[in-house]
């Protein structure tokens, strides 16, 4: 596409895709693994579909996506791919049963047919087109130059609460970068800090790992010292390390995220909380919900939001698509107005509006999200020339002159700082987490030339530490959704680490137990425990 240089500013859309590492080979069926299966069915495959449509039609869009190493590992894991096939087959079976059940219902019959077609298409795409490897599909778009994939923390550990152990922070970043390099065959340009958690001094680890930009929440740049001239609409360079920091634009985020004023709350969009897994009688649905009879989401939903009422009306696909066209138009219009206003305020400097979202929002929580996104990208390229879609790295290459300032410590959690991960519900975890971090650093320095069994045990201890450091456990305990599971996961990894530590220090490594733990927690197979050393 011809580079049109009369645009006044830029817009960068960033999708953050992350799931905690849930893989239980010792169970046939595990409820939390369904987070991954639902995400694949409702988010990742639809996103790949829209990217492919855009590319086939010659639309040269530009977008950024974050894929966390745990998500990539789960998507590339053969066991989980097999289990996903099983899940998808059961879903297709259910949709066929639904077609038969609703054949006399004028409202629901077309929807049942729609879901049946959709799940069968997903099956074909997953198996034949993408060969069960979705990461390779995303990589294809990155190689085509339309999608920039950046990395995240290794196990999404919340870095500001680890700041007293620089080796742990360095390990989270370096393991992520190494894993990205082994999967995507190139150096990542930037990183999405877990939960956008930044503290001053973190940028030097990013610079050492070769990363060139990261993201913070709005007040991370607004409260930067000295005060940034261009506020939230231009990146700042951190002093001494030169890493650039971008921040989230609140108005574009709230247009999509807000439950009251956002697009997903429109009355014609699909309602998330009316799943047939909860509505239909037990004897019909029992094979498609949990084996013990507890109900769960299946993915087939027939009703639309309708408003703040319990009486939901049936979902109309055509109306929803019309609404998403209107909303895409509105969004692009708002961005045009915003970029024009900002460009006139900044004399000479081109503003960039960064809109980061969770990838799960598009498809899983908001069913019409991928359609809306595809429309926004098309409208941004063809229907206007005020702003240009870009990625943060492209912006830095085109506008290299930026202000030097230190961003403020912040995160994008509730209340903007560390409250969500450190409060009376989950503060007891950190004592143990810091203790095992200390022990890991001690072991990394102590064992300079370990023999093979010791090295395996040391690497496994590193894996257990990384898994225990995941911020998802503290997050789940605070939100209260699956508290026992997160608690048990955390305690399991700490316990396994302590066992490994005792075995290594006593030089009596039980190989059978080590094999069992390696089978159960097989994240990052090429992890080297020496990342925890302080010098290099």
């Amino acid at each position, binding site marked *: 596409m011809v580079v049109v240089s009369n645009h006044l500013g830029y817009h960068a859309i960033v999708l953050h895709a992350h799931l905690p590492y849930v893989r239980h080979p010792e*169970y*046939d*069926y*595990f*409820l939390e693994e369904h987070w991954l299966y639902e995400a694949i069915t409702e988010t990742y495959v639809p996103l790949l579909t829209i990217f492919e449509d855009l590319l086939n039609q010659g639309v040269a869009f530009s977008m950024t996506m974050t894929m966390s190493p745990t998500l990539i590992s789960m998507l590339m894991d053969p066991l989980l791919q097999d289990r996903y096939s099983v899940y998808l087959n059961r879903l297709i079976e259910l949709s066929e049963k639904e077609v038969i059940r609703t054949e006399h219902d004028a409202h629901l019959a077309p929807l049942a047919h729609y879901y049946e077609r959709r799940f069968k298409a997903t099956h074909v795409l997953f198996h034949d087109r993408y060969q069960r490897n979705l990461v390779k599909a995303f990589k294809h778009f990155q190689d085509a130059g339309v999608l920039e994939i950046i990395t995240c923390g290794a196990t999404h550990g919340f870095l*500001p609460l680890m*700041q*007293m152990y620089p080796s742990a922070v360095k390990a989270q970043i370096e393991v992520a970068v190494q894993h990205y390099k082994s999967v995507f*065959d*190139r*150096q990542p340009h930037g990183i999405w800090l877990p939960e956008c958690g930044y*503290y*001053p001094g973190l940028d030097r680890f990013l610079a050492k790992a*070769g990363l*060139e930009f990261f993201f913070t929440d709005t007040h991370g740049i607004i*409260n*930067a*010292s*000295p*005060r940034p*001239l261009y506020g939230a609409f231009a990146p700042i*360079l951190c*002093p*001494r390390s*030169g890493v*650039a920091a971008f921040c989230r634009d609140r108005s574009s985020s709230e247009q999509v995220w807000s439950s009251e004023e956002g697009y997903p709350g429109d009355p014609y969009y699909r309602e998330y909380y009316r799943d047939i897994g909860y509505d239909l009688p*037990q*004897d019909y649905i029992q094979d498609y919900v949990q*084996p*013990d*009879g507890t109900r769960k989401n299946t993915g087939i939903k027939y009703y639309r939001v309708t408003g703040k009422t319990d009486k939901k009306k049936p979902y109309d696909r055509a109306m929803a698509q019309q609404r998403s066209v209107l909303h895409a138009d509105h969004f692009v219009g708002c961005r045009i107005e915003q970029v024009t206003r900002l460009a006139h305020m900044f004399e000479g400097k081109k503003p960039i509006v960064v809109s980061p979202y969770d990838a799960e929002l598009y498809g899983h929580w908001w069913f019409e999200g991928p359609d809306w996104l595809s429309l926004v990208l098309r409208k941004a390229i063809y229907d206007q020339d005020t702003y240009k879609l870009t990625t943060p790295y492209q912006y*830095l*290459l085109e506008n*290299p*002159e*930026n*202000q*030097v300032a230190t961003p*403020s*410590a912040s995160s994008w959690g509730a*209340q*903007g*700082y*560390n*409250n969500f991960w*450190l*409060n009376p519900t989950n*503060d007891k975890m*950190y*004592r*143990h987490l*810091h203790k095992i971090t200390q022990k890991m650093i001690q072991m990394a320095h102590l064992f300079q030339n370990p023999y093979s069994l010791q090295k395996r045990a040391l690497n496994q201890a590193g894996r257990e530490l990384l898994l225990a450091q995941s911020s998802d456990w503290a997050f789940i305990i605070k939100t209260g959704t*699956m508290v026992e*599971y997160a608690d*048990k996961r955390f*305690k*399991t990894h*700490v*316990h*396994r680490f302590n066992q490994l530590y005792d075995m290594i220090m006593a030089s009596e490594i039980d190989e059978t137990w080590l094999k069992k733990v390696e089978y159960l927690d097989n994240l990052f197979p090429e992890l080297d425990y020496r990342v925890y050393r302080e010098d290099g």
Partner: protein
Amino acid sequence: MKRRRKKYLPRHARSGMKALKKLASQYGIKNYLNKSPSALKRAIHRHEQRLRGELRPARQIVDSQQAAITAYRERRLRFLFSPSRFVHAGTHEEYILEKDEELKLPLIYGENELVAMPIDPVHFYVYWDFNEEMLSRVQANFPRVPFFLRVYDITEVIFDGSNAHAFWDITCHPLAREWYVDTPVSGRHVCVELGYTLNGRFHALLRSNTIAIPPETVSPVLYDVFDTFVPTTTPMILAPATPISEAVTHQVGHLFFQPYEPPPEPMPVAIYTPVPQAVPQPVKQPHPIRSFPMWQTIPEKEDEWISIPEPEVEMKPIPGILRRFQTAPGEFANGWFVWQLPAGEETVVRWMAQLPGEVGPFFFHETISTPHDRALIVSLGVWPWQWEEYVPLGASDWTIRRFLGASLFSWYRPGASERMGKWRRPVGASERMLRFQPPGGSESLWRFQPPGASENLSWMRPVGASERRLNWSARGWWL
């Protein structure tokens, strides 16, 4: 229901709530203390029927429901007691209940440590632990001696125990092992020490790591430095180890197999030393709540102060660190008190001068000394009355906010609103103490007005003031 005769109950329980309650508690009936006598009788009767096996079900179970109930029960039992968990499909409930690993995390690690973790600009979290020797020291001193978490502001210093910019103490229980601390400074680096105060000296037991408290608002520093972003060169991924052919390698190998070079050091960024601008001075505004009584306005400039003649009451030297400011003749005199603050700096408080001289020693409960502002929480006593007051020594936003917060939200601290700005008797004052008046106290102290008020001294009350009571609460008669 037709009323039945009492003969269906055994004789010992036929009468009285006491017997009924005893029987109900024996039978394990729920909520038996709050039930009426008839409800208790009904419950006891129902329980006895149940024991005899005569109870009929309340609702009719339909056949189809019965089949579903049985099927569910069967499935549930199979799920719970199935021999191998690989036979049936388990859920995460089983994972949570599995006990093959002893997942008990230790409560205490038994090593001396004090770790601080920032939460947000106004809070941080501290946890600590003691080893046996330190624990015995703590238990020897506590609770005889108060334990504090002393928080130091150590921005841009290498802390050696004494060179902090400011510090403040927070009383804590040393065996609690964790604490949520409110911090009055933001955008600074902070460190915590746990210790106790003995004989006026602070003995530190543990010192924590340094944490950076995030800034609360935009930075006051306006200093624009720009620099150019230089992309780091992406190193080529290593080519496969086996070359295509040796001849090619020999001739043009260097074109195909580029060795891995680590990325060069990032370009030196312009050396940036922050030049702090002077913090903008706060504009002097009339205090919204602490408005002085109308007849006692504080004039802006010094020459507006009228010279007040020397009172006839002899001003006794006030013990402690208070001393009177000696002025040169011709300048304004009388009533400027100067405090010797712990930091060694002096400041002047004007309004204290309006108080009569017979007030007792000033007790400084809390001294807040920060680079931004200073305030005192002063408690002064005219036995047996006591007055507690916040004295903002500066007038910045922070002090005023603290002051406002203390006054507006004093309801939150138990007893604070009673304490603030009111004359009250100290806790220890009892009828017995009245017989032993402290030196300097006299009968006139029992009255509401301080001594000298009713003696018509012109310097005590301005012209025009009536005989009505003085309002020392500074809150207005309507509040």
